[in-house]
């Protein structure tokens, strides 16, 4: 096969700056964040989370994404190479975002959040879609 091999990245556990109200480990999802002239896009790897488990919160320039994992597996651990837990990550946004127009969708465990910059004007609600 040509091309590079994917490497193992350790799952980053959150060393909390704020207290979580739920018990259990929280992990920091890997993200890609990019922007063009009209919008900011965030992609977060949150395997095990379906669209109902996503919570997105934007307040005073802070964007927080949270994902709750679902799905039980029967039996006892024989091999345990990774931990399972909910995801959370918070970002400070420097651009002014049009909050009414934030869109989010979840596909194959990847959350996509599109944050339009506020000079565009088309009112819409935040909805989490599954594709």
């Amino acid at each position, binding site marked *: 096969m040509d*091309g590079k091999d994917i490497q193992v990245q350790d799952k980053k556990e959150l060393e909390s700056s704020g207290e979580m109200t739920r018990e259990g480990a929280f992990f920091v999802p*890997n993200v890609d964040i990019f922007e063009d002239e009209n919008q900011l896009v965030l992609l977060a790897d949150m395997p095990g989370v379906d669209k109902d488990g996503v919570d997105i919160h934007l307040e005073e320039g802070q964007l927080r994404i949270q994902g709750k994992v679902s799905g039980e*597996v029967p*039996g006892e651990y024989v091999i345990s190479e990774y931990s399972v837990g909910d995801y959370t990550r918070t970002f400070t946004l420097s651009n002014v975002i049009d909050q009414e127009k934030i869109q989010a969708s979840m596909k194959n465990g990847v959350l996509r959040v599109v944050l339009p910059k506020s000079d565009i004007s088309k009112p819409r609600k935040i909805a989490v879609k599954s594709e």
Partner: protein
Amino acid sequence: MAIIKLRQPAYPGALFGQGAGDRGYNVFQNEMNRLFDRFLGSGYDPSAGSVFPPVNVFEDADNFTLTAELPGMESSDIKLDAEENSIQIQGERKIEKEGENLCYHRKEREDGFFSRKLTFRDKIDKEKIAAELKNGVLKITMPKAQSSKPKKIEVKSS
């Protein structure tokens, strides 16, 4: 944070030279090595036997169940092969190109190929293996072969 116990020298200079000889310096050297190991940890050495993807395997009376986190993949990107007591998972994670002239603030997600083979102690019934990819988690249910299930033997009294 690792706490290193300071060894109290029995007398000044006991750690370095003066009767301790080589042993004094080695003590210091070993402590420094241990300090680095604890700080860097095993997570920073990808060559130390960790292959993508990390898996969890569960066992109950009838099945082995394997889970692996493969976000952003479709089932067509994954290839599964099974033998009597092993399973091989291969595939490619692709990350779509999002557009031209983009300014990336963060780029943490990785793409690439992977291939991993796992061998089990018990034989599995490869005809009955089922695999499901849901929300980026691959779940493979492998029923144990009849011959490897524990059999209850009745003790008859005569």
